[in-house]
């Protein structure tokens, strides 16, 4: 392995193509940490945004007018304002209202760190889209199918769990797929509040080594690969769930 890494040092000496995150173990660790931070942030946000989406779509079904309205205001607010400003709003403004905690060294620190705020903010942002996606999926299930279940004596809950949700989920999957890809790309915003994710670490490396071009191209490729893996995974899931003769 070391031989492989050393080859890039030779490459640098010979051609000037500087890829320190390969031959330098310190930079390598930074890059790997950044990569896993991006993956971690993505997974946390994916999870919570889907939860927000499902709960929101369920609340939108509520018989209470004001519950539905509040959900709709949430959706419109988060969809029509810049995610970066949302992030700042959470990280600087909301966080200024929160109590601080002892950091164990006698000092005070905010209760939630950058990672937590990035996760909260981005989950709400992507969740706003997911609510609409799930709602559209639920609405796409024909009433007549629900009625058939009712005529067979299914209870409301049984109908929802066994008929509505499985069908709605299949309808929603392509849009969900798209939104989740966007979410992964949006995690780069965490850079702005100094969460050490991939872009942030790459920035550190190019500041130290003055190799912006190489780092840029590497970053684009790695995001391309990351998104590619997600798209591939979601597509194969979509295929696995596909029912012959249902949908297109």
């Amino acid at each position: 392995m070391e031989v492989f890494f050393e080859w890039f040092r030779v490459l640098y000496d010979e051609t000037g193509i500087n890829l320190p995150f390969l031959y330098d173990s310190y930079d390598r660790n930074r890059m790997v940490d950044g990569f896993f931070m991006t993956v971690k942030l993505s997974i946390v946000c994916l999870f919570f945004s889907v939860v927000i989406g499902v709960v929101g779509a369920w609340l939108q079904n509520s018989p209470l007018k004001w519950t539905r309205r509040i959900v709709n205001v949430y959706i419109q607010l988060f969809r029509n304002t810049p995610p970066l400003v949302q992030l700042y709003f959470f990280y600087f403004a909301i966080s200024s209202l929160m109590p601080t905690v002892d950091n164990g060294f006698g000092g005070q620190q905010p209760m939630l760190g950058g990672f937590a705020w990035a996760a909260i903010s981005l989950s709400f942002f992507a969740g706003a889209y997911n609510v609409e996606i799930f709602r559209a999926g639920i609405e796409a299930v024909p009433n007549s199918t629900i009625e058939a279940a009712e005529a067979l004596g299914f209870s409301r809950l049984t109908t929802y769990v066994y008929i509505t949700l499985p069908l709605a989920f299949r309808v929603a999957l392509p849009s969900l797929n798209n939104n989740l890809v966007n979410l992964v790309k949006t995690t780069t915003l965490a850079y702005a509040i100094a969460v050490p994710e991939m872009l942030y670490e790459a920035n550190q490396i190019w500041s130290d080594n003055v190799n912006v071009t190489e780092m840029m191209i590497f970053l684009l490729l790695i995001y391309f690969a990351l998104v590619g893996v997600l798209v591939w995974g979601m597509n194969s899931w979509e295929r696995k769930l596909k029912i012959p003769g249902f949908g297109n």
Partner: protein
Amino acid sequence: MNNRSQKILPVIMPVMMAPKARPDDRFRLQRWHGFALVAVLITASIPAFAATDPARASMFEVLQRWMPLLLKGFVFNIIISISAMAIGTVAGAVLGLGQISLIAPVRKISWLITQFFRNAPWLVLLFFAMFLLPFELKIFGLTIPLPDWLKAMFGLSLPVMANVSEIVRGGVMSLPSGQWEAAESLAFSRQQTLWRIILPQCVKRMLPPWMNLYSILTMATVLASIVGVSEVMTLTGQALAAEGGRSDLLIPFYSFVLFLFFIYCYPIARWTVRLEKKFAVIT
């Protein structure tokens, strides 16, 4: 509404009366909701307000003082968004037509470029343009300076280009193949078919996603603050710093920025939805 229900044939009534998943009252924001929003923001900032030293200017006075500057910054955001949209649309249209070209290499290269810029995060592309474009361009002995905001504009037009390319391709593909066949049977050339038959029909379909993209782009212009362009977010940060980092100012200032974008983007979103519905009926 009443008018419509009277015309409904009795046969389909049972279907229509079947238990609905949810009552059909799509919520729309109205003017009073805006006032309600402002009221909520004010109430939310009361705790901060209460903590303020009465000797210092109240946060609303401060906000008012900075408002003209912030508005100017926001106008700059709009200018960047419109220019980036124009560049991106032209480049994207070319790339999109390349994606449906009959020449395989053109098609493949266009596809690759599209995918590459579509899958990259906007912020990374912005960095890409900021750092890799020179600070000035020399053409025929003429030196054209490339200020940061111009570079940011190019940087933002890259993802726009890729997305427009996909919109064009998607629009053309969404047309039933019968249109191509019908035109071919009438001895139209491919060029004629594309420009006279296919594209005019597609423009309508492409408009809603294109507007949606514009809205996304407008919201992405704040990313330029990360690379130091003096747009609204940068100015907000500077204003806050100039006021000595008072924490009670954070909520009103950031809310104001959110509010600016909201009143600009929400009408676009509503309009997009309306167009989508309108065109969905035709097709």
